[in-house]
């Protein structure tokens, strides 16, 4: 079996208060078992306090597990942490790292030196990535003059510029506008998809982001992994009937539609202002759509639009946890 990019076995982490009067111990991770293959863009989805950042800190050698084991690129994070560190990097959302008096390019160069990247190689990579992220015009600006979005783009570049095998991204688009988020997401997808076995472990509480980017997703809450699968398979866990909304030209004979096999909750309304009839119904199975369409056409009406509502990761999360994100 190929070495996994990340593997955890019964991984637990308990935080004890400094003094007894400060409260009880907190179990941030509770027997977490995960296996992330090389080349995966893996998502860890959970609300605040679910244990996502704790897991990332253990995997990035900043925190020791209380019990269990974690391996990154085959190396034990507790014992072989120097080997792990050579192969990883991490970027967190809302990070304010670096020095304000340095320029963007100088800051990125400085961090690249901590990974032993040759100066020229680092500078070429930085120029190329600043171009990709639309930051070329900012390269000689002091970091303290950057906006939040520009600063986060710089942080993301910091993570990629050392060319790690495995990159941990802790809510990298937190608080960013649509454009900045889109640029970052596109870069992540391209980086993983370039066929060099690069792996990304992404934590997020943006469901759409996880759905859009990740090959597989683990849902975590209260330090426990509740489910782990592809977004499509996770959605199948929710046995939710598919709701259809069909707009057709004014239809007089609608009675037959409700009696088609597999159709339930059939309702209709005539929209006088548009001369359309809106049909709403629930199907147990998509195959009944053709019967509906045939019946509409037989009545002499024409289909104008059709909408289908499917389960989302949010529905999956609500099913698993019993509540949505705050």
């Amino acid at each position, binding site marked *: 079996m190929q070495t996994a990019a990340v593997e955890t076995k019964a991984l637990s982490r308990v935080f004890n208060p400094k003094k007894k009067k400060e409260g009880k111990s907190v179990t941030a991770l509770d027997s977490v078992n995960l296996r992330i293959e090389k080349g995966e863009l893996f998502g860890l989805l959970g609300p605040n306090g679910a244990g996502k950042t704790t897991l990332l800190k253990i995997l990035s050698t900043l925190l020791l597990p209380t019990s269990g084991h974690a391996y990154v690129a085959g190396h034990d994070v507790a014992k072989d942490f120097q080997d792990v560190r050579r192969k990883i990097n991490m970027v967190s959302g809302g990070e*304010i790292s670096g020095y304000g008096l340095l320029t963007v390019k100088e800051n990125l160069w400085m961090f690249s030196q901590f990974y032993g990247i040759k100066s020229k190689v680092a500078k070429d990579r930085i120029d190329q990535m600043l171009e990709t992220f639309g930051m070329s015009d900012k390269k000689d600006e002091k970091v303290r003059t950057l906006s939040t979005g520009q600063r986060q783009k710089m942080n993301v570049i910091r993570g990629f510029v050392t060319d790690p095998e495995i990159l941990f991204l802790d809510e990298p688009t937190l608080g960013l506008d649509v454009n900045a988020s889109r640029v970052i997401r596109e870069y992540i997808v391209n980086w993983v998809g370039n066929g060099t076995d690069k792996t990304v472990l992404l934590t997020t509480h943006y469901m759409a982001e996880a759905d859009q980017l990740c090959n597989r997703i683990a849902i975590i809450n209260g330090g426990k992994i509740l489910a782990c699968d592809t977004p499509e398979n996770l959605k199948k866990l929710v046995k939710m009937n598919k709701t259809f909304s069909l707009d057709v030209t004014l239809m007089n004979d609608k009675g037959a539609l409700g009696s088609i096999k597999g159709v339930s909750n059939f309702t209709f309304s005539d929209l006088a202002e548009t001369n359309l009839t809106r049909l709403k119904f629930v199907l147990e199975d998509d195959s009944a759509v053709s019967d509906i369409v045939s019946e509409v056409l037989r009545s002499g009406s024409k289909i104008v639009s059709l909408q289908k509502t499917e389960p989302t990761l949010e529905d999956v999360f609500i099913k698993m946890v019993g509540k949505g994100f705050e």
Partner: protein
Amino acid sequence: MTDSWLVRNLRAIRGRAYPRIIGSKREPSWLFFDIVLPLLTVSAYAYVYKFMTARPEFVGYVVLGGAMTAFWLNILWAMASQLYWEKEIGNLQLYLMAPISRMSILAGMAVGGLFFTTIRAGSTLAIGVLVFGITLNLADPLMLVVVFIATMISLYGMGMMFASLYLLFGREAYHMSNLMTEPVYLASGFYFPVKYLGPWAAAGASFIPITLGLDAIRQLFYPAATQDAFLPVTTELAILSVLCVVFMILAKYSLAFMENLGKSTGRLTLRWQ
């Protein structure tokens, strides 16, 4: 990343030294705060010695001591408290996650700090010489260089050790730095030869490398004033060499202890904890 461990760490030292070196160019306000202001204290002592009609070398001692204060302040505020600052601004966890020795990060800070502070100290010395007209009779420049290097290595080694301790103490670090400023000026004899504190006090103060370093530097600039020397220069150099090794080892172990404690408790690398 195929380069050797040594090359990687040398690059890390260069990388971390860079902000300090470039900082001196980008924030010229230090010219006033770090050169002109310390000269006021030097001036006060110099005039006291002049009015007391003390031997002329005493004004030279004060100027040399005033120049060396730059290094002590750099140790306290830019070495010892630096990891604490790095934690506050979010850099510490990036340093700890990097595949390099923690000593390289601190060595980078030390190299950058040393570069910057040597300019400051040199400026203070030059202005002091011009303003007070002191004469420096350097007989053995090579020995001066060796003593200065030994003093700086042991001093910055002590700063590296303090860096871990300050991180453990958190906000109390400010008080520690304040606590160690003026008392060390006195104990290490920044404005007078340390010999006049008495042998036991001078011996106790010798654990701070700048005490012996400053005494040796004064002896090298004023070789005739043997009555003001605490110990022979060669003895002081030997002790400084021992302190270099001791502080570097202590720094390495205290950094490892700090890192392990941080990884165990999770309290040292997170900004808000």
